[in-house]
């Protein structure tokens, strides 16, 4: 479904952001993307959104090749992707409903189905009663749920989430994460970039850890250290399994 092949991304002024990336994400998979600040998580998500093109290698998302895709192909691909951000990116001057509907309006889908779809999406995120509220009248967690509803309303095959809980407190984080898990359980893949190592450690999902633009750990390739199958002492460059004599998870 998502495939990267020897991908490198170099920015004109800041240099190499990603290099030597080759991996796949399967249909319906939940993947954490983690790593220190500047390691390239957001850049990787931008490649999947095709907001940026790889400098080298190739990215395929649902059969669309980053190299060959025209602007129009990318627009059409994005209608089948859901994307959420740390800062929610809602339109402040529209209600929750209108924000969700926005996502339908751009697709040119038949209008008659809008109301019902918007309603379903808001219900799915637990905000059926807040449809007429404006973003400023909602808590951070609720705003992120509206953003998730907006991402869901077009029935995406994958949700790309860039630190969706980065601005949220403990409780709201758990709520949003639970929601993403539920969405994943119903068959939608989720790729979630996060700094929250506890969240990563406490779930059983696949983890891809980046550092300096390279994959330093991918739980689909290597079982987690400390399970006896890899040498003790952690992994070089990894925060998740630091290469020190302390056991993982104590930092």
């Amino acid at each position, binding site marked *: 479904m998502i495939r990267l092949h020897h991908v490198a991304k170099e920015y004109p002024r800041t240099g190499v952001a990603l290099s030597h990336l080759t991996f796949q994400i399967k249909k319906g998979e939940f993947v954490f993307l983690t790593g220190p600040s500047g390691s390239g998580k957001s850049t990787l998500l931008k490649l999947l959104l095709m907001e940026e093109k790889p400098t080298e290698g190739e990215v395929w998302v649902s059969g669309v090749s980053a190299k060959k895709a025209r602007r129009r192909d990318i627009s059409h691909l994005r209608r089948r992707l859901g994307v959420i951000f740390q800062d929610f990116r809602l339109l402040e001057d529209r209600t929750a409903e209108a924000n969700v509907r926005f996502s339908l309006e*751009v697709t040119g889908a038949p209008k008659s189905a809008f109301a019902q779809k918007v309603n379903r999406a808001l219900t799915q995120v637990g905000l059926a009663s807040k449809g007429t509220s404006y973003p400023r009248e909602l808590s951070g967690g609720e705003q992120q749920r509206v953003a998730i509803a907006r991402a869901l309303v077009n029935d995406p095959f994958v949700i790309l989430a860039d630190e969706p809980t980065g601005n949220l407190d403990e409780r709201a984080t758990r709520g949003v994460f639970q929601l993403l898990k539920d969405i994943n359980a119903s068959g939608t893949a989720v790729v979630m970039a996060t700094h929250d190592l506890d969240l990563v450690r406490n779930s059983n999902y696949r983890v891809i850890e980046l550092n300096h633009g390279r994959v330093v750990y991918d739980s689909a390739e290597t079982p987690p250290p400390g399970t006896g199958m890899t040498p003790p002492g952690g992994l070089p460059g990894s925060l998740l399994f630091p290469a020190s004599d302390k056991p993982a998870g104590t930092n």
Partner: protein
Amino acid sequence: MLAFREALIASKRAPLLSALGVLTIAFSLFAFGLFSLVALNIKHSLQQVEERVEIRGFVTDGTPIEPIAAAMKDISAFPEVAKVDFVSQEQALARARKELSEFKDVFEEDVLPGSIEVHLRAGLRNPGTVRDVANRVGRYDFVDDVRYGEEWVDKLYRLRNIATVAGTGLGLAFALVAIIIIGATIRMAVLHRAKEISIMKYVGATDGFIRLPFLIDGLMRGVVGGLLALLLIWFANRTINRYFLQTIFFDRKTIAIGIVSGALIGVIGSMYAVGRHLRRI
């Protein structure tokens, strides 16, 4: 339809920005239009003066009418010539008395000679042609003298050339400034909605879909700004007409072209501003 609604919603959301945009367009078109009106009037006046360019061949007293009539027929066959008239001694006297009524009594019979008056076609009243035709008129035996206001034909012609070049140059400069200002106001509108545009991109809007409301917005601004500018110019023209001097106003075709150009500038400005923005996201 949706795009149209979006455009309306957008101007409702940022009424000050829209009003400013329309006013900016109106004022830059006003400046351009006022300049064009002045240019139009100068051109019109010069044309009127030009129409008075004539070659006058004075005829020897007592020349019979037949050779004069034959000569006039020849002359009217010249391709440069629009019209040939004969002014008899009596007519010349009557005209002089009328035009210079203060000196009515100075003129006596027989003082003024009869003459052949030649008017040239529009566009051929340049010094070279005038001189050439005058020479040919002068070749007739019974023509004593030919006059055509040598110096002022030259001057008029030069003035017209200068006016045309200066007018076109200044007009282009004004139009360019108008386009730049209008482009800047539309760019402001685009930046104002940058967040909305970026979200549209993320949820899969095509470039065309994003562009359309801006095009409509630009079109409306251009038309409204153009109409406003027209109103201002019309007002200015009426004031000048009433208190200062007689002027002419644009004809309907020019007005229509003006409004269409306003709309076009709005649309092109939007296309450019949004296109530039879209290329970066």
